[in-house]
C-alpha cells in the first residue's frame, strides 16, 4: 500500500505536470526547429509569436463568452483556436513579406536573420502590449478537473490522490493529435516531402522543380498552427501573460537544441526531456521517500536537489551540457 502511495505521489506531482508542460514546450520546439530547418535561422521572436496567437484566442474567448457561445464542459478557447490560427498565419505572412523575404532573397547570413527576428520580437511585443496590455489573464472556463484528489481517494481508498486538471488532459491529447498529423504530413505527403527536400539541399530542390515560395508559405502555415496551439494550451493551463511567454522562449530553445535542431521529432522529445528534467530536479522527494522508508528513517530535509527557483536554470544547464558534449543534439539533428 505504501509503495502504491509513493508511486501516486510521484505521478501526481511530477509525471502529470511534466507531461503537460512538456507538450507545450514540444509544440514550441517544433515551431523553432521547422523555422530553423526550412528558413535557416534561429527565431528570437518565437515566444512573442506564440503570445500573439494566444492573444487572439483570449480576445475571441471573451467575445464568444459575451455572446453566450461555449462548448459546455470544454473551454471556449478550443473553439477560438481556428480563428486565432488564421490571424496568426496572416500576421506571420505579413512579417515574412515585409521583413524576412528580403533577407532570404539576398541570402543573408543566419546572424543577420537572428538580429532581424529580434526586431520582429520588439514589434510583436509592442503590438501585444498595446492591444491587450501586459496584465495576467485567465481565460479558462468549463470543467476544471477531470479527477479530483478527494474523489480519487474515495474511489481507491488510498491515502494519496491524483488530480487531473482538464487543461492537462486537453494539452496532452491535442498535442498528440497535432503532432501526429504534422508528422504524417511531413513524411507521407508530396508537399511534406518537398519541404524536407528543400531543407536538405535548397539548390537541388530548386532544380527538381520545387517552388520555394510554396515551401516557405507552407512552413509559415504550419508554424502558425503550432505556435498558436502551443500558446493557447500553455495559457489555458497556467495563465496568459505576455512577459511569461517571452521567457518561455528560453526553455523552448533549449528543447529544440537538446533534441537536435532541425529535427522535428527530436524537438518533440526534447520538449519532454526539458520538462521532466526541470520538474524531477526541483521536486522535493520527502513525501515520496517517507512512504518507502520505515518510519524511524524518515528524512528531515525536503530532499530537493535544487530549489524551484532554479527551474529555468536546470533546463539551461542541460542545454549547455548538450551543446558542449554533443552539439548536434541528443537525437542527432538531421535536418528534417
Amino acid at each position: 500500500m505504501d509503495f502504491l502511495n509513493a508511486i501516486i505521489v510521484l505521478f501526481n506531482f511530477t509525471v502529470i505536470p511534466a507531461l503537460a508542460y512538456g507538450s507545450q514546450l514540444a509544440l514550441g520546439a517544433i515551431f523553432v526547429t521547422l523555422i530553423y530547418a526550412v528558413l535557416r535561422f534561429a527565431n528570437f521572436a518565437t515566444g512573442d509569436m506564440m503570445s500573439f496567437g494566444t492573444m487572439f484566442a483570449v480576445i475571441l474567448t471573451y467575445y464568444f463568452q459575451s455572446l453566450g457561445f461555449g462548448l459546455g464542459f470544454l473551454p471556449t478557447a478550443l473553439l477560438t483556436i481556428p480563428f486565432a490560427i488564421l490571424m496568426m498565419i496572416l500576421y506571420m505572412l505579413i512579417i515574412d513579406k515585409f521583413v524576412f523575404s528580403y533577407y532570404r532573397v539576398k541570402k543573408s547570413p543566419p546572424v543577420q536573420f537572428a538580429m532581424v527576428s529580434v526586431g520582429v520580437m520588439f514589434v510583436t511585443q509592442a503590438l501585444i502590449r498595446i492591444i491587450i496590455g501586459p496584465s495576467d489573464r485567465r481565460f479558462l472556463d468549463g470543467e476544471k478537473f477531470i479527477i479530483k484528489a478527494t474523489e480519487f481517494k474515495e474511489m481507491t481508498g488510498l491515502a494519496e490522490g491524483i488530480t487531473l486538471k482538464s487543461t492537462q488532459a486537453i494539452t496532452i491529447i491535442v498535442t498528440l493529435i497535432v503532432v501526429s498529423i504534422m508528422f504524417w504530413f511531413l513524411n507521407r505527403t508530396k508537399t511534406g516531402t518537398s519541404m524536407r527536400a528543400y531543407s536538405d539541399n535548397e539548390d537541388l530542390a530548386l532544380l527538381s522543380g520545387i517552388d520555394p515560395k510554396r515551401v516557405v508559405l507552407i512552413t509559415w502555415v504550419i508554424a502558425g498552427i503550432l505556435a498558436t496551439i502551443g500558446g493557447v494550451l500553455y495559457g489555458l493551463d497556467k495563465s496568459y501573460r505576455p512577459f511569461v511567454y517571452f521567457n518561455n522562449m528560453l526553455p523552448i530553445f533549449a528543447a529544440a537544441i537538446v533534441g537536435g535542431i532541425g529535427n522535428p521529432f527530436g524537438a518533440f522529445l526534447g520538449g519532454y526531456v526539458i520538462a521532466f528534467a526541470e520538474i524531477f530536479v526541483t521536486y522535493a522527494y520527502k513525501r515520496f521517500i517517507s512512504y518507502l522508508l520505515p518510519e524511524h528513517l524518515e528524512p528531515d530535509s525536503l530532499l530537493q536537489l535544487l530549489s524551484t527557483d532554479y527551474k529555468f536554470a536546470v533546463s539551461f544547464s542541460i542545454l549547455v551540457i548538450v551543446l558542449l558534449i554533443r552539439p548536434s543534439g541528443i537525437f542527432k539533428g538531421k535536418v528534417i
Partner: protein
Amino acid sequence: MRNYKNVIAAYSIMIFLIILVGIFQSWSIALTILNYCLISAVMTIGANIQWGYAGLINFGIMGYTALGGLAVVLVSVEPVKKAWQVGGLNILACIWIIVAIIFVVKFILNRFDKSKLRNYSVASVILGGIILLRVTAAPGIEAIESVDPAKTGFLGGMGLPVLFSWIFGALLAGGLAFVIGKIALGLRADYLAIATLLIAEIIVSIIKHEEWLARGVKNVIGLKRPAPYEIDLQTSEWFINLVTKFNSSKLNLINSISDKQEALNQMVIDASSVYVKLCFTGLFLTVVIILLIVTQKALYSPWGRKMRAIRDNEEAASAMGKNIVKEHLLIFILGSAIVGLAGAMMVTNDGLFTPGSYRPMRYTFVIWVMVIVGGTGNNFGAILGGFVVWFLWVEAAPIALFLINLFTSHLPETNAVRVHLIESAPYFRFLVIGIGLLLIMRYRPQGIIPEKIIKQ
C-alpha cells in the same frame, strides 16, 4: 575629413535633443537621460568590441551587467560581522569545495583518455560535489539569512570606496567571460547567441535567489556614492551661496523676505539634485572618453587589424598563423569586462541593486539594437547608438502620449479607444525600437555611422 563632419553633426543633434528635454521637461530629467546614455555608451563599447571587432555574437550582456552590479554590493557595502560569525565558515568551506571539484575534474580530464568511464566519473564527481555543497552550505545560509532579515540577512561587502567596485566589476565580468568563453566560444554563431542568452539567465537567477550573497530579490538599497548627497549639499553654506549667486537676478525680483527664502529653498533643492547628477556625468564622461581613446587606439593598431582579418575571414587569418581561439577568447573577456564596468556604473548611479529588474529585453536586446543602429565596428557609431536608442527608449512614451492626444483630440475623453491608447503609451517604446531596428537593418545595415577602414 567628411566622415568626421557626419560624426560631429550626429552628436550635435543628439546633444541638442537632450538640451531640448532640459528646457521642456526639466534639467534633472535631461541629466538623468544623459547619465544613462553614457552608461549605455559604455555597454555598447563593450558589445561593439565583441561584435564589431571580432564578429562574436554575445546575447549574455544582461549577465555581465548584473555581475557588475553585484560587484558594487560586494565591494562597497559594510561587512555584516554577525553574519560572517554565524555562517562565514560554511561559505568559505563551500568555496574550497568548489575549487576542489574543479581541480579533481581537471585532473581526471587530463589524466585519463576519453572514455565512457571518464565521462561517468566526471559526472559523478560534479553531482557528489553539488550534494556536498548543499549539505555544507544549508546551515550557514540559513543562519546568515536569519541575521536581521529585514535589513541585512546577507554577508555584506568589503566596505571599500565605491569606485573600486567599478574595477572589481570589470574583473568579475571578465573572469566569468573567461569561463564561459572557454566553454562556449567553439559554438557556431547562432548557437553561441542562444547559449550566452541562457547562461546570462542562469547568472541572474543565481543572483536573484542566493539571498546570503546580495539579498536577492529583497534588493540592497542605500549604496555608497562617489558624489555628495543631496541632503548634505542642501545644508552646506558654500552650496547655498553658489545657488544664490547663480540665481541672484531672479531672487532680486522677489520683494518679501519670506518669499525670497522659500524660493531660495526650492532652488537649493532643485540645484542639489542637478549638482549630484552633474558629478555623475563628469565621472561617466571620463570613463567613456578613456575607453574611447583606448578602443580607438586598439582598433587602428596591428592588433585591431588582426581582429578585423579574423572577423572577415577566419580561415585566411588562421592560415596566416593567427591563433583564432585565443584571440576570440581575449576579445570576449575584454568586451565582457567593459560591460561589467557599465553594470557597476549603473548600480552606483541608481544607488540600489535590484536583481529582479535584470531582464533580457532591457539589458541584452536593447543594447544590441544600440550597437546595430549606431554602427557596428565603429566606436563613435556605437556610442551614438547608445545615445539615440536610450533617448528614444525614454522619450518614446511622452512623445507617443503627445501624438495620441493630438490624433484623438476630436474624440470624447471617455472614448474607449482613446483611454486604451493613452494607457498603453509606455509600450510604444518597443514599437519605436523594433521598427527602428528593422528599418536600419534593411536600408542602412552598416548603421548610422558606418565602419571606416583606413587603407595603409
